[in-house]
């Protein structure tokens, strides 16, 4: 019985016998475990495991197939973004925050920029066109993020096809992002004071066409999941967390809305002019994994509605500014497409290098030093695809943040893993974690 098994070698430790399972033939392992008297087994799942949504480590204590204790270990993707931001200018901060929750980069950027603007006292000076572009980009981003949640969520439960279709839809959104910002992810497009540059020609037409296409595809994709009896059985009644559980654990987003509470900051504490759009807050009353996925599916349609309204508004606001008028804050140069690709606007370079020494000084100072932000402390929260994303920022009056902290919904909501899965079957923790939709880049920052 103690023959060496290349897939499941074992060793004695002070904690008892430890098996390292690497896949393959588990016969010997099962036999060995069966030989021990103890029923309790501690399973370490992750941090490199295909079903843990990134580098999440779950330590599960099992009795048979029932989870008696579940603990999540995080920190494998900690990059020190908050610390790094203290050494860069306020504008450079966008480049960092966009990399936190990498499925919702535009939400990170918007939360950060709204907080900086609140500190600067220019919240009401942001041009309308910039705010509409922000809303449109955030809603597109919500779609691409929900597509990953639905696609990988289904994949982790064993349904492979929905993932292909979800990623096809996400690709449509990423193409729009690439067209507008030049990048598919981590675009640092939203800047304090407005957005980095105006929409390129043809962007609105492309968005209109994409909305039509996505609306059709979303309906078809939904039937792939709703019509799949295995997916239904593996999501209904799983990962239960009610309203009391959500409030005490600070859980927001689709998980909170799955308890029937229509809590959506876009409606209740509007920012970026969300009060001017018609859309519904989607809820479910099942408190389970199914309800959370259903909410995400139905939020897609609401996002499409908002995007359509944005496109209508943007057509009327053609040519309006996309950056605050205050030249002490606004980025001095816009980008322009030249023969060798996208780069600094040649008109601007001609002006600063050839005609106006003051413009050159201004450009140089603003780009190297950045702008001063009056001392103070703010907390700004927005509704990200995963819940309340809060930016807690302190300024000491300098050109760099004194302290930046993000209240990340993934970080907070992941705490609910234990409440959702203890007492359930080990296979159901996969669905429970997927329904939280944690993004480890955001959790660990």
């Amino acid at each position, binding site marked *: 019985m103690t023959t060496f098994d290349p897939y499941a070698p074992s060793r004695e430790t002070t904690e008892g016998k430890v098996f390292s399972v690497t896949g393959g033939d588990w016969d010997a392992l099962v036999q060995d475990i069966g030989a021990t008297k103890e029923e309790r087994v501690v399973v370490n799942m992750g941090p490199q495991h295909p079903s843990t949504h990134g580098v999440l480590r779950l330590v599960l204590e099992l009795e048979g197939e029932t989870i008696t204790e579940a603990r999540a270990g995080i920190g494998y993707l900690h990059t020190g973004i908050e610390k790094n931001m203290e*050494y860069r200018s306020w504008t450079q901060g966008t480049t960092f925050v966009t990399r936190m929750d990498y499925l919702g980069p535009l939400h990170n950027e918007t939360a950060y920029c709204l907080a900086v603007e609140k500190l600067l006292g220019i919240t009401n000076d942001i041009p309308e066109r910039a705010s509409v572009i922000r809303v449109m980009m955030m809603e597109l981003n919500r779609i691409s993020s929900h597509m990953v949640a639905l696609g990988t969520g289904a994949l982790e439960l064993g349904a492979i096809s929905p993932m292909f279709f979800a990623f096809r839809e996400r690709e449509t959104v990423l193409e729009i992002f690439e067209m507008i910002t030049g990048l598919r992810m981590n675009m640092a497009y939203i800047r304090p004071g407005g957005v980095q540059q105006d929409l390129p020609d043809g962007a609105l037409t492309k968005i209109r066409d994409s909305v039509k296409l996505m609306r059709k595809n979303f309906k078809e994709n939904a039937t792939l999941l709703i019509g799949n009896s295995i997916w239904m059985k593996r999501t209904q009644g799983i990962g239960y967390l009610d309203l009391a559980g959500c409030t005490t654990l600070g859980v927001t987003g689709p998980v909170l809305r799955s308890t029937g509470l229509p809590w959506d900051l876009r409606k209740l504490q509007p920012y970026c002019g969300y009060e001017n759009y018609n859309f519904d807050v989607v809820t479910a009353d099942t408190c389970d994994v199914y309800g959370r996925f259903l909410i995400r599916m139905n939020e897609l349609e609401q996002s499409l509605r908002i995007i359509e309204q944005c496109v209508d508004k943007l057509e009327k606001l053609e040519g309006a500014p996309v950056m605050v008028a205050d030249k002490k804050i606004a980025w001095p140069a816009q980008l322009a497409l030249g023969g060798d690709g996208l780069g600094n606007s040649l008109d601007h370079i001609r002006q600063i290098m050839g005609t106006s020494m003051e413009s050159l000084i201004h450009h140089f100072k603003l780009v190297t030093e950045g702008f001063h932000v009056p001392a103070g402390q703010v907390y700004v929260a927005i509704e990200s695809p995963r819940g309340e994303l809060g930016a807690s920022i302190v300024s000491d009056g300098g050109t760099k943040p004194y302290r930046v902290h993000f209240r990340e919904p993934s970080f907070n909501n992941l705490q609910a893993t234990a409440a959702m899965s203890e007492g359930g079957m080990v296979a159901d923790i996969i669905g429970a974690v997927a329904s939280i939709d944690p993004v480890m880049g955001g959790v660990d920052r």
Partner: protein
Amino acid sequence: MGTNKQADGMFGAKGTGDTSGYGGLVRQAVNFGSSERPYGSYFDEVADDLERAYPEFSEAIERVVVDRGELTLHVKREKLVEVAFILRDKLKFEMCMGVNGVHYPEQTGREMHAVYPLLSLTKNQRIRLEVSVPDGDAHIPSVVEVWAGNNWHERETFDMFGIIFDGHPGLTRILMPDDWEGHPQRKDYSLGGIAVEYKGATTPPPSERRSYK
């Protein structure tokens, strides 16, 4: 827009006409002062309700700051848990959106600050609690028994600032490795990094680059 009003000259240049902006690595002291009534918005109502529900209000709340449309109650650490229970149960601040630390090395005797943003689902209101403690005795009672969701947030603040939350069910590091030395978000903890040389010119690491006052 006039947002840089407190700066004297162009881009904050002060004193001499030197516009190089080089300010060494000096950090300005931060002090947000305190506010007097009326606070405006729903803040007076919150303060009144808390005063009515909590007889020791004047003793527990050190000062009240209203800035940029946000209310901050500075609470003495001994009273934090009491105040938290009343805010949750009587004033319906059902949710605590976590805690984050801020390190102010020049505020002698109150270097470490812990900031708690609260949210009321019932009344759709937000307020903030702030507790400040000396660096040498950075102990704050844990509010995990009030808002269980603060568990990881307190662990993160401990990990990053070294603030010890007494009564926390398991205060261990959460983002940094268990055997890590020091608390990275403190101001006396260097960012690190190495200088980069390119074509004869050297760019120092970010923490050693010039800083503008």
